[in-house]
């Protein structure tokens, strides 16, 4: 019976082709294989986000009058509501962390070389979308910290020359943070960003499938990978071990450090002390904070925004700036750039949490 059903589905869905693809797909095994697991880890955490996000949507109400109360209701009255919200919040952070590890490992192993330029660009877009997910989701509980962090975050956007004013009003839905901003961020968080992200994830996974795993130049120079591992089941099973470990970490974090709700946002209250953005924006926040007021007559904040923008552009265009073979002086310079960026981001993120001031 099951065999006949499988045959019926296989005829209609082309399961044999998929099975053939899965059987054919393999992964090179070498000393950098470990980094291959981080893409799957990011995707797994994205799945957790989607699942817990849908559950939160069942109770969340997106208005300035009700948002905080609805999250409080989820945390206190809904069975396992506290767990779902804590997992959603922790998983968001772990997902961005996993995406960053994936990005840096791809950069430093030069996985963006032709023909994988679009894989790199789509990955960068996905990281940008993850940050946008984080920024928009942070405001949704409508608590004091989120309110003022969003105010500071959107103020920075307003400082961008020419388009700053437009961007600020676009994000806030007016001149100030209000219930309108909350509704807008909710729209971004649950409709616009998921639609775009799903599409880009599809493209990214398709490209990974099409071009296979990239082998780092250093491994190629040493004669290439000595052996290859079947994607199904060998690599897949290892992936699942990692996902289970991530699930364990999520359970641990959610039970020991449930995500706080804090006080309800009050636009007339003074900003709470020690206000800072989520850790993944920390290095940008610290850069802005440490900038002198003026550099060569130009506002320090503008110089910082321009610098971060330029750095982002170079990072995005790395596949076109690096040597296509990943060898030679240009390649070494790009690797050095990656190391500097990694050290800079880690150091400046840590500085935020050490309370460093200019």
């Amino acid at each position: 019976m099951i065999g006949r059903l499988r045959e019926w589905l296989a005829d209609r869905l082309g399961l044999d082709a998929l099975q053939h693809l899965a059987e054919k797909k393999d992964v090179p095994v070498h000393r950098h294989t470990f980094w291959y697991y981080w893409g799957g880890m990011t995707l797994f955490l994205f799945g957790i986000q989607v699942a817990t996000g849908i559950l939160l949507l069942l109770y969340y109400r997106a208005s300035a009058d009700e948002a905080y109360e609805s999250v409080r209701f989820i945390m206190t009255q809904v069975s396992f509501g506290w767990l779902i919200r804590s997992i959603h919040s922790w998983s968001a952070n772990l997902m961005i962390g996993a995406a960053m590890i994936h990005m840096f490992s791809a950069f430093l192993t030069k996985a963006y070389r032709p023909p994988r330029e679009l894989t790199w660009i789509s990955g960068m877009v996905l990281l940008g979308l993850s940050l946008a997910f984080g920024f928009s989701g942070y405001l949704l509980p409508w608590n004091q910290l989120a309110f003022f962090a969003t105010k500071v975050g959107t103020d920075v956007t307003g400082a961008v020359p020419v388009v700053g004013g437009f961007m600020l009003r676009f994000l806030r839905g007016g001149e100030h943070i209000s219930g309108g901003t909350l509704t807008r961020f909710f729209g971004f968080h649950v409709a616009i960003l998921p639609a775009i992200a799903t599409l880009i994830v599809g493209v990214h996974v398709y490209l990974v499938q099409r071009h296979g795993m990239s082998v780092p130049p250093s491994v190629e120079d040493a004669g290439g990978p000595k052996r290859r591992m079947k994607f199904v089941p060998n690599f897949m099973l290892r992936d699942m071990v990692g996902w289970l470990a991530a699930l364990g970490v999520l359970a641990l974090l959610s039970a020991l450090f449930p995500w706080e709700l804090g006080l309800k946002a009050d636009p007339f209250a003074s900003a709470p002390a020690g206000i800072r953005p989520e850790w993944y924006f920390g290095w940008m926040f610290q850069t802005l904070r440490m900038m002198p007021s003026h550099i060569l007559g130009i506002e320090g904040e503008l110089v910082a925004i321009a610098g971060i923008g330029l750095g982002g552009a170079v990072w995005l265009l790395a596949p076109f700036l690096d040597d296509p073979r990943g060898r030679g002086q240009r390649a070494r310079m790009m690797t050095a750039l990656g190391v500097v960026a990694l050290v800079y981001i880690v150091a400046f993120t840590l500085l935020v949490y050490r309370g460093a001031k200019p």
Partner: protein
Amino acid sequence: MRPLIVIRWALVVAALSAALAYVAPVARGAAPGAADTAAATRTGPSAKNTCFDCHSQLDDSRLSGPTKDFPQDIHATHGLGCVGCHGGNPNDPEMTAMDPDKGFKGAPARKDIAELCASCHANAAYMKRFNPQPYIFSMAEFRTSVHCKKIAEGDLKVATCTNCHGVHGILPPRDPRSPVNHRNVPFTCAKCHNAEYMKGRTVPTNQLALWRESVHGVALLVKGDMSAPACNNCHGNHGAVPPKTRDISVVCGNCHGREGELFAKSKVAETLEFEGKRGCVTCHSNHGIRPPTDAMVGLEGEGVCGRCHTAGSPGARAAAELVPRFHTFKSHLARADSLLGVADRLGVETAPGHEALKQANDALVGLRATIHSFSLPPIEAALAEGEGLASRAESHAREGLRDWRNRRAGMALSLVVILALMALLIARIRQVERPAA
């Protein structure tokens, strides 16, 4: 073909502009309140005032002095000139303007000042021209004051209207510069009620020094609490008198309503009155009143009951029974608060516990007020209510902590399951990758 392309692009640009305007709204219209600015600027009446014109030019400061402050005087800002109090003709630029035959009165005599002010300020119909809800001065009330009585006896070294309000630069009481502004009243009273001015009189003169250090003085001067009492809140202003023994609980009860009401009905009030003691002042003092503490209840340490009650008396026995229960209730409250704090830090639900704790704290405030009934049954009832609420707060906190422990147990269980699954997967990997025999 070309016009079609132009139209197509124009439509695209228009649609894009509309979309951008839609997503990034701009506030329309002028800022709120901008239109009110002009209306808020008022110009004074331009009536002729030759008194001011001449007196402001005079060298004798006694004669020109009044013109310095008068432009900001509340009378001047409401269009009233010198003539209102001094008479004469403000349209006459010559000395004939001050002809007594034409109604010139000059400076009013000290004993007549209150009557002169009352001629307008006691006239409700007239005062309503300037304020729809005016303060109506009552000469009858002023006559009840020690000040007025002394003036009537011919003692002119006591205060009349101008001593407190000023003369030619009178400001409305709401103006912080006014000597009768709530914060300034104690210092205005002290201009006369000081040792030097009161020499030869029996009136005490240490009130300001005591009041400044008191709970009321600190609240008003340091904390800026404008509801805290100054001199006039207890003594009255235009009818200022020292409160009589009997009136003190009424005076205090004006603000401390529940305490005043319970005390007035208590046997203690009756006894104190019989013994000629001064109600609330007996335990709390008056001008130098300190923040009340729970330690005041009892015979020992800071306890004030011992001022009247001796050890072994019924009052002392009641205090000995109540005080330990009172402190048990307070320690119960502190325990509930601490447990709720722990539960808060652990991230479990504490809202119902905090609500119960708030009610229990309110019950403590109620209990402190109920002590003024000096009757065991209501005090015991208030204690029992507070105890019940504190227990409820504590049990909510404990429930939260139990919930937290359950979460940890759940986490431990889920970790065991996850680790078991991981072990199975690893075993499966080894099985798959075992070289074929």
